[in-house]
């Protein structure tokens, strides 16, 4: 996994609440055998019509907006456990997703792929959407070490939470599996005393 330190970028706004993983990547695109290439189908049914023509109203088809930060409405990533949703977001080029609330499994999947879910308050999220609406070229700074998300032009900085363990993993580029493999002796010892039926 790549190390995550700071991201300084413009942002792509999707001010819709309850975006489920079926919207992020519809089930019919889950048939791949590798982790690559899912970005092409990110938000597929909002992005393309039934003849596969781009829907101009959708933000990913609008050149005004770009960058490696996705900003979305409350309860982002609810629904299925498909990690393909995180792969699609990462493959498209996003490194950070900002929302006022994330679904648990999506959050875990994002972190396991070096994508940082930044959870800020409802009111703070509204300020972020307003800043992008005012100026699509607005720059945001995400600082993992300081755990801050900053609207650069105004200097408004919002604090976000991340567990100490995941913060360490992201900043050093470690995976959970490295941590688990370093504990195999403990796992074997646990098994020897476990009673199960």
């Amino acid at each position, binding site marked *: 996994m790549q190390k995550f330190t700071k991201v300084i970028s413009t942002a792509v706004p999707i001010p819709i609440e309850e975006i489920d993983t079926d919207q992020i990547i519809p089930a019919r695109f889950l*048939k791949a055998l590798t982790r690559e290439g899912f970005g092409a189908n990110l938000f597929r*049914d909002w992005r393309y019509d039934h003849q596969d023509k781009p829907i101009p109203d959708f933000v990913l088809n609008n050149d005004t907006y770009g960058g490696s930060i996705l900003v979305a409405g409350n309860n982002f990533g609810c629904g299925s456990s498909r990690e393909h949703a995180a792969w699609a977001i990462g493959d498209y080029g996003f490194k950070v997703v900002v929302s006022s609330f994330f679904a648990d499994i999506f959050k875990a999947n994002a972190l396991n792929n070096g994508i940082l879910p930044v959870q800020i308050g409802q009111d703070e999220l509204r300020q972020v959407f307003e800043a992008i609406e005012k100026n699509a070229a607005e720059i945001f700074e995400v600082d993992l070490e300081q755990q801050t998300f900053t609207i650069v032009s105004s200097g408004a900085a919002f604090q976000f939470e991340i567990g100490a363990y995941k913060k360490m993993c992201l900043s050093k580029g470690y995976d959970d599996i490295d941590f688990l493999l370093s504990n195999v002796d403990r796992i074997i010892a646990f098994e020897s005393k476990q009673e199960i039926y």
Partner: protein
Amino acid sequence: MGKTLFDKLWDAHIVHTEYGVDILYIDQHFIHEVTSPQAFDGLRDRNIEVFRPQKTLATPDHNVPTINQHLPIKEPLSRAQVQKLYENCALYQVPIYKLGHEKHGIVHIIGPENGITKPGMTIVCGDSHTSTHGAFGSIAFGIGTSQVEQTLATQCLVMTRPKTMRITIDGHLSKGVYSKDIILHIISKLTAAGGTGYFIEYAGSAIEELSMEARMTICNMTIEMGARGGMIAPDQTTFDYISGRSQAPNDELWDQAIAYWKTLVSDSDAIFDREEFFDAKDISPMVTYGTNPGMGMGIGDRIPPSHEVSNVEKSLKYMDFHAGDSLKGKKIQHVFIGSCTNGRIEDLRLVADYVRGKKRANHVQVMIVPGSKQVEQQAIQEGLDKVFEAAGFQLREPGCSACLGMNEDKVPKGEYCISTSNRNFEGRQGPGARTILASPMMAAAAAIAGEIVDVRQQLLAQHK
């Protein structure tokens, strides 16, 4: 201070705690074709083996066709994914119930029906509806593919302990109201995000009265309010269900197992982070009107105005419904009965009892997809297949099917499907498909009437 059932089980599975996270031991891992290929690739990249192959069980379910399962899968990508699962299982010696095997089926159906799912276990699978297994008093939750790889590699996961919530439902259900209605009612009250961060224990007299299959329906949909899992303390109903199943503990171990399982309850003085209470008599047959499972209402209710439900305008536009509408009398074109939520034998029996001697409305296509080969065989043994045939319902072969439309079983754009599955997201049953979630009885009644009806009134009419 006493402990909750959840905390007892979580504590019993902690291998080690460091950096504020727990290494949690996983007793049983299930895998399927869609979320596992990249996990096996990860093992290969690191040059490691499956740590405990006998603690994983594989089955292809998401992608498989539900007709002609004895023939090669036509769709090349689906075929490749199923083939990859077979190859990986052979290579790493992971047990598998392949397509056509007598124990094949949806992963969350076959665990319980073969006695693999038992009280006190930790169970994971790369599928959010793994919460189903919690009905047996186990900690069961869905995981992503990176975590599938971690479980294959070490039989453990790195976890942060969730908060606990108890939902108590007391009282008796009215006639025509089922466990699917209980869970749709709860989600409609607590919302699709209301349980996020929590692990839920369901309790109360209405839960105790339910069969194991009905309890599984409730735990199954726990994820639809954002909670990773839901559980129900095991009792005599649980023990009776497990007894005699192929992987249940045998004679001498059975008594020991029961003695242990009986300790799996929340202590009377245990404190939950949150408690919610419902009365069973307030629950009516439920239908969803929007595009997440929290957008549900009793069949006698009207779609609430937009200021009462977040994000509802976009949903109503997609569904072509309006605030103030009742769904009674709403024409439907498709009925889907199946999935890990409602694809068990009791569901099929209920539907068959209702439709015996009746016929589907001409404009309605009805698909019944059993959750497993064993459910299918049982249905045939009981003659339910004949009842369905006479009613114009098509009984197919097991799989996830139209719940998520990964195979050919899709609902066409713009058409309505009343479905016993678990998600009514945009496009879930096919691009542009409109899904209305309901109980198997509400689905059966709609199939006959050709429109959404209040099954309680149909049942009353039947008895006159």
